[in-house]
């Protein structure tokens, strides 16, 4: 090798081993970037929240303003409306990245895709699931939700919506390559949402009747733990399939 070659190879290094470190940097930067992006397109963040508020406002008007009747169906109504609101926002989770080419760049990083996808889902939950959970007690007032169940409602929604975001992201990843994947996404994801819905609404019911709330919350927590372990891997695999198509 000549002297000039030696001087030049200083600039260009061929990496011989898998990259070490840098994962925290990449995950943190992805979190920050997605937060910044969503906060600059506020309408997308507000859409599900407005949907949630409108649906809950319409029920007393459409059914009856009778507090006893509303209180009986309030837990289920609040949970179903929140679930649909979360579903509404899922379609855009990977869509923008797919359209502008940053998704293929995300797939080409040497960092583990599952963790980067988890960062994106975390942002989705922070700006959709968490605000929905915080808003729910206020809307609960409109449905004459009995006192004592407000905290449980917020906690169950916070826990449950995290699972919803994780599970929904699998569907969003699978349908990102399709031009009109919205309906398919709902069909794919809704059956998987049912356990979360049952135990979430169940927790609020239990709080109203004074049963064991903790059991329901524990199952919601267990579902979240399962989703946290398996969903990122499934999301990563689904993204790979979508990009391949």
């Amino acid at each position, binding site marked *: 090798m000549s002297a000039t*070659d030696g001087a*030049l*190879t200083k*600039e*260009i*290094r*061929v*990496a*011989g*081993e*898998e*990259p070490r*470190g*840098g*994962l925290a*940097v*990449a995950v*943190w*930067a*992805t979190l920050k*970037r997605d937060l*910044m*992006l969503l906060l*600059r*397109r506020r309408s997308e963040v507000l859409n599900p929240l407005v949907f949630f508020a409108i649906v809950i406002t319409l029920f007393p008007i459409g059914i009856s303003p009778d507090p006893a009747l509303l209180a009986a169906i309030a837990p289920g109504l609040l949970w179903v409306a929140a679930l649909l609101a979360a579903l509404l926002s899922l379609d855009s989770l990977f869509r*923008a990245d797919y*359209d*502008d*080419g*940053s998704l*293929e*760049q*995300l*797939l*080409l*990083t*040497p*960092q583990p895709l599952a963790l*980067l996808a988890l960062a994106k889902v975390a942002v989705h939950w922070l700006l959709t699931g968490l605000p929905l959970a915080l808003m729910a007690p206020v809307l609960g007032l409109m449905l004459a939700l009995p006192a004592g169940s407000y905290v449980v409602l917020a906690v169950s929604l916070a826990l449950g919506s995290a699972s919803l975001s994780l599970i929904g992201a699998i569907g969003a990843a699978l349908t990102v390559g399709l031009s009109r994947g919205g309906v398919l996404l709902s069909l794919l994801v809704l059956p998987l949402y049912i356990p979360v819905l049952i135990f979430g609404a169940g927790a609020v019911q239990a709080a109203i009747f004074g049963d064991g709330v903790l059991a329901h919350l524990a199952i919601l927590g267990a579902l979240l733990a399962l989703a946290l372990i398996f969903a990122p891997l499934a999301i990563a695999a689904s993204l*790979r399939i979508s*990009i*391949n198509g």
Partner: protein
Amino acid sequence: MSLRLQGQNLACERDDRWLFQGLSLDIQAGEIVRVEGPNGSGKTTLLKILSGQLADYEGELFWDGRPMREAREIFLSNLLYLGHAPGVKAALTPLENLAWYQALAGQRGGEAARFAALEEVGLAGFEDVPAGQLSAGQQRRVALARLSLTPRPLWVLDEPFTAIDRDGVAALERRLFEHARAGGCVLVTTHHELTPCAELRRIRLGGGGLDVGN
């Protein structure tokens, strides 16, 4: 550790039509390989296969003598791919866009490096303008700033000259040759005629057949 990307008997079929068949190639350090062919001849598909994005092909790929399946992570940390879409977020400024790419490469990076990279591609003064307000050519330049910001030996560039003005094309062409001379490797599709030189090789696709020439 050497820079060597090999493909053996690559073949790819789309919609019952063979884009290419029996394509073998050996790409090494110091080369610029231009993939040529008419529209729809499979240039982008070949680039996607060679950058490890598509698994739907026949044949074998090797990086540095190892099968791609085993060497994928190492390969990816040597690769810089710029696709059709520039991968630039319209709502973010060029600086923020580059900061994310730097972080994806695992580098914390500094503001100064990002400013320097943007200046090099002629975007000084546009650092804090949302990329959505920039022209198509300027957005492409934001993506091209990654070439110097996150140095990688293997560049795979799909139509990098799109929407770039004449001076920009000349500068980018110079940049490609510098990279090849410095021991890097460039794989590029373009309809723009590159200045012939010793480093340049061509792969011609189209009409189902192909020839690999020098």
